[in-house]
């Protein structure tokens, strides 16, 4: 056993912070109640009290979950570089390749601004087009912030449904795109241009450096999304007592057959990060929208967006972009209908 790790500052800090995190997290509810009822001493059950209680409890809770999980995701992701993922996918048969690409899409660090170099790097080194698409669908759709927020606000079942259906869509959509042989709709220069000699991607990162990458991920991601989370939960708190509970039922309820396709069509061009959309979805559901419809809306907002399509237009011809949108959008609609039907 190597005890060297205990000498690392990054590791020591993590070891101290973890129990502190736990103590605060388990006491969040009693502390909030004590603060509302004893310190502020306001009437229990009043609209404003309950809205305040909702915000003061939900916001720190979700924020703490984000910090903890993003930290571990940051460490995990330091093991999955784009180069390694490509190596794993090179020459993989379809279907197995689609499954692997979708799974790797979840854990490989991805930013939509890197979509083009990633696409070129995959396709030009021999990863099949359909497998590349499975990756490109899964990577933005199954977003760690969305998973954490869904877990925090709805519990693990909804989070698991989201991961499971998102994976299925990425696998099947990529597989279909592969079967359709759409290489002709990739811009011609993509296959003629050549990748340069790569630098070897040998791994010199030590574990303390990976912990540092976990801290960096927290700083970067939580630093970027906390405001959206706060705003989303504030809207949720505001709607809590003031908007009638069945308000959304007539637009987005189970019995409105066109609600799913309409939500998806509205969601496709919209662009929002997961942190902003999940709290809004939670309001929709609380006010009578059905789970399937709300989930379909959220998925289409996160997975497909106008800015991403404009970026991809550099390497894909229009018919392929439209096919891509149609297949993924169709998959999301099926998921929406399925959940409205079984739940």
């Amino acid at each position, binding site marked *: 056993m190597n005890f060297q790790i205990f000498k690392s500052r990054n590791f020591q800090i993590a070891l101290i912070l973890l129990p502190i995190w736990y103590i605060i997290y388990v006491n969040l509810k009693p502390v909030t109640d004590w603060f509302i009822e004893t310190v502020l001493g306001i009437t229990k059950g009043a609209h404003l009290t309950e809205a305040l209680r909702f915000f003061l409890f939900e916001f720190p809770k979700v924020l703490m979950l984000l910090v903890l999980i993003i930290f571990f995701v940051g460490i995990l992701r330091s093991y999955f570089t784009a180069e390694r993922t490509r190596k794993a996918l090179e020459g993989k048969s379809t279907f197995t390749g689609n499954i692997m690409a979708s799974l790797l899409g979840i854990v490989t660090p991805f930013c939509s*601004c890197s979509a083009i170099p990633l696409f070129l790097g995959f396709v030009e080194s021999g990863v099949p087009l359909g497998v590349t698409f499975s990756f490109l669908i899964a990577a933005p759709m199954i977003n760690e912030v969305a998973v954490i927020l869904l877990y925090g606000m709805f519990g693990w079942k909804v989070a698991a449904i989201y991961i499971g259906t998102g994976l299925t869509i990425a696998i099947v959509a990529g597989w279909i795109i592969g079967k359709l042989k759409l290489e002709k709709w990739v811009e011609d220069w993509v296959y003629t241009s050549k990748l*340069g000699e790569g630098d070897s991607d040998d791994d010199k*990162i030590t574990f303390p450096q990976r912990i540092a990458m976990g801290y960096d991920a927290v700083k970067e991601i939580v630093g970027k999304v906390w405001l959206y989370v706060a705003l989303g939960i504030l809207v949720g708190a505001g709607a809590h007592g003031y908007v009638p509970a069945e308000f959304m039922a007539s637009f987005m309820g189970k019995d409105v057959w066109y609600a799913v396709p309409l939500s998806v069509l509205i969601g496709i061009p919209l662009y929002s990060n997961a942190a902003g959309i999940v709290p809004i979805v939670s309001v929709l559901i609380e006010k009578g929208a059905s789970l399937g419809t709300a989930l379909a809306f959220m998925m289409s907002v996160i997975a497909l967006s106008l800015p991403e399509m404009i970026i991809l237009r550099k390497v894909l011809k229009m018919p392929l972009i439209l096919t891509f949108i149609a297949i993924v959008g169709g998959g999301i609609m099926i998921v929406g209908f399925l959940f409205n039907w079984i739940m």
Partner: protein
Amino acid sequence: MNIQVLGTGCPKCKSLEKATREVVAQNNIDATITKVEDIVEIMKFNIMTTPALVIDGKVVVKGRVPSMDELKQILTNKIYIL
């Protein structure tokens, strides 16, 4: 020293270029800095995540913006982790 900043124009690419110029100026490093925005040129370095920093033809940073301290280490002592 020949420094190239690779990036298609995303916000992170711009902040890497800015940080690199600052570190070079502050430490009186003798270097020419060029920004490479053409995707075909970028792919010649066989990287898949932008932004990236290239010193004398060698990729030293990819997919992230290092802190000013780390950048100084990289540019003055050529110490880096990929």
